[in-house]
């Protein structure tokens, strides 16, 4: 810079190019710092912890991969992961309901705003509060039992919703449907709104029924957002924590992977092992997400892209037709 001789710092800093760069940096600095300090730094630390035999307080000892080995040899870790199936099942129901209500409410429905509000409301309630609400909801002789008794059920024939190990996981997973359905619905409504309304008019002129409209217009147009929601719900199911932790405390066979992890870390002070569990779960979630992406690309396509399966089918069909043509030509 000295070579230029007449370098003017003030001029340099005021120049448009530099200003642009400075702007970008200052704006990015805050979120990036936050992201680094509160996400990546703790995460890196956690990976470090997973190689130690350590407690929160006191010395630590390097044990290499022993914690990881233990995660895979313990029977409770992966058994807990099976519970995620309940939550995955719940997330399918949740998305189906959300899609149904979204399709209904995005057309002219009376008081649709009120319904949207009511259905979105549970999402705004803090997860811990939701837990307490449902604890009372499921208590013997309380809300659910009373309502069912109005419907003619006898109290003696009703199960203990949280005690009976056959159904308690359904009860707990159902709370997450209640909580997240509204949020999914609002996202779907947003996506449906963005569909060109002239398509509906055209469909109406052609005499399409409601189901036809859904199948041929809505579904293909919001495919991407459905897939996104599905992926989010399934990865969320793998790390389900709040409902079982608050409602049952993970007792009576409702302890999900996260609850077990929390117990190991806080009650048995096995911080290293719990960190290893967290890393393993992360890897599992990454794999699950990738598998889902591949799966959806194959069956539904991504964005504007056509599904790989459809493309292949078409190619096959075309090839067949060509062959037929060629064969047919030969015969005649």
């Amino acid at each position, binding site marked *: 810079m000295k070579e230029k001789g007449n370098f003017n710092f003030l001029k340099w800093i005021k120049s448009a190019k530099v200003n642009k760069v400075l702007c970008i940096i200052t704006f990015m600095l805050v979120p990036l710092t936050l992201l680094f300090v509160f996400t990546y730094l703790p995460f890196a630390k956690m990976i470090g912890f997973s190689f130690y035999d350590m407690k929160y307080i*006191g010395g630590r000892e390097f044990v290499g991969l022993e914690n990881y080995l233990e995660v895979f040899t313990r029977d409770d870790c992966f058994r807990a992961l099976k519970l995620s199936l309940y939550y995955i099942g719940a997330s399918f129901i949740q998305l189906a309901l959300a899609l149904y209500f979204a399709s209904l409410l995005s057309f002219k429905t009376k008081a649709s705003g009120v319904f949207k509000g009511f259905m979105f409301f549970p999402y705004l309630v803090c997860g811990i509060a939701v837990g307490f609400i449902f604890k009372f909801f499921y208590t013997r002789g309380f809300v659910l039992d009373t309502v069912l008794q109005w419907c003619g059920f006898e109290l003696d024939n009703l199960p203990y919703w949280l005690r009976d190990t056959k159904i308690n996981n359904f009860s707990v997973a159902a709370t997450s449907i209640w909580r997240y359905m509204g949020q999914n619905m609002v996202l779907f409504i947003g996506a449906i709104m963005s569909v060109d309304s002239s398509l509906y008019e055209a469909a109406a002129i052609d005499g399409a029924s409601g189901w036809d409209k859904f199948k041929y217009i809505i579904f293909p147009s919001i495919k991407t957002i459905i897939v996104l929601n599905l992926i989010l719900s399934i990865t969320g199911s793998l790390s389900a924590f709040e409902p079982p932790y608050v409602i049952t405390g993970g*007792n009576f066979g409702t302890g999900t992977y996260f609850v077990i992890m929390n117990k190991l870390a806080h009650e048995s002070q096995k911080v290293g092992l719990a960190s290893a569990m967290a890393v393993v779960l992360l890897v599992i979630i990454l794999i699950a997400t990738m598998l889902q992406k591949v799966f959806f690309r194959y069956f539904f396509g991504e964005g504007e892209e056509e599904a790989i399966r459809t493309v292949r089918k078409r190619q096959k069909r075309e090839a067949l037709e060509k062959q037929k043509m060629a064969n047919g030509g030969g015969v005649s």
Partner: protein
Amino acid sequence: MRKNFKRLLAVTLTGAMTLSLAACGSKDDDKKKDDKKDEAFTLTLDQIKLGEDYTSVKADLKFLTHKTDKVDNTFQDYIKEFQKLYPNVNIEYEGITDYANDITTRLSTGDWGEICMVPTTVDKDELENYFVSFGNKSKLGESYDERFLNNYAFSDKVYGMPSMVNLQGIVYNKKVFEEAGVTELPKTPDEFLAALKKIKDNKKDDKKFVAPLYTNFAADWTMNAWDAYIDGGATGDADFVNTGLTKGKEPFSDRGDQTGPYAVYNTLYEVVKQGLTEEDPTTTDWEGSKGMINRGEIGCMVLGSWAIPQMQAGGDNADDIAYMPFPITVNGKQYAAAGPDYCYGINVNSSNDQKTAAMCYIKWLIEKSGFAESEGGITGIKGSKLPDALTIFDSIELVVNKAAAAGEETLFNDVNNDSELGINVSGAIPKQIVEEAIKKDGMEMKDMVKEWNEKWTTAQENHDIKFE
């Protein structure tokens, strides 16, 4: 240009981040230097004469407590009283709801306040890194009962002073027991079960009646209360924790004479199995249970003596609430375990003035505040008498767990953590018992005992414990 821009961005970002990190680091360093400038802190609790020494000390104290319900009322009165003697000491209480979990994390930051209740997660050999010593055990033992100073003592120095001492028994509703014809208190597990059955039969037609014994299962920590009965109280042996549990071979096995850990756990198993507890343990209500036992809708609850005043305050029938020893008799004699509740500790990183003020306040809390008695316990001062609610314990020998031998101070915690049975920590055993007893085809007691023994033995072997 693009490349340059990227480089510039990268450099600035890393610069900013290291700077912000360095800023955090340098603050810590400053603080440490300050501490070093202070002269070594040598004051001990026994040297302080309340109201005479250090009355001009100036300090702001922050007090972390688990008693969230007392922060705005009782503790404020304490501060006012204390400030009459020490006008320049300001105290600010912070109540933490999930105390047992949160405090460990807070402690590791070093900058959490001046006084807290020492959590069980700090191993004894780590105590000196976090807390100020109150003095030598033998010296403090002149005015305080030495048996209660062991929990947080390491190489003869005491790092935690008990806020109160609890007795372990069963809080029950006298009227419910008497109405059912149980006039003599049960002394063995069998008698206890029979008494509960009588109560259940007596209350058969009472729709409001909840259960002869309420487990409070859903509150979680209430289950780990059961662990407090398995040592001294169930064996009469003050050294049982060390010789029987930590170093004992298969400590959970049936001893055949209705004593020891097995007797306690089996009582819980049978109570649940025979349907003498609430129908659905997953939806119990801790706050509600206080009113229920007060109104006679619950027969009894297995909780430390600290629970008495809370149950008395649960409704209008304070006089019906009484306390009895756990129904286990060893060689014709009943024992009750007594042990310190949460202990006060002072931050080792505080300034000398703060440490002095904190020590004065803790001494005042123990000796003058009346906190222990109002909470259903005793103070731990030598020769302190049992409060009225506990007079029945006059005829019963109190057993206080002995300290572990030198060099083995952390052994119990190590084995306990390693085994994941969480004795006195998580209540894993009592919770498992309730679950299995309720299930139709749940595990039987003997299978669970086998499982615990195996876990315990493996953990013992991991820590090189050899059986004699």
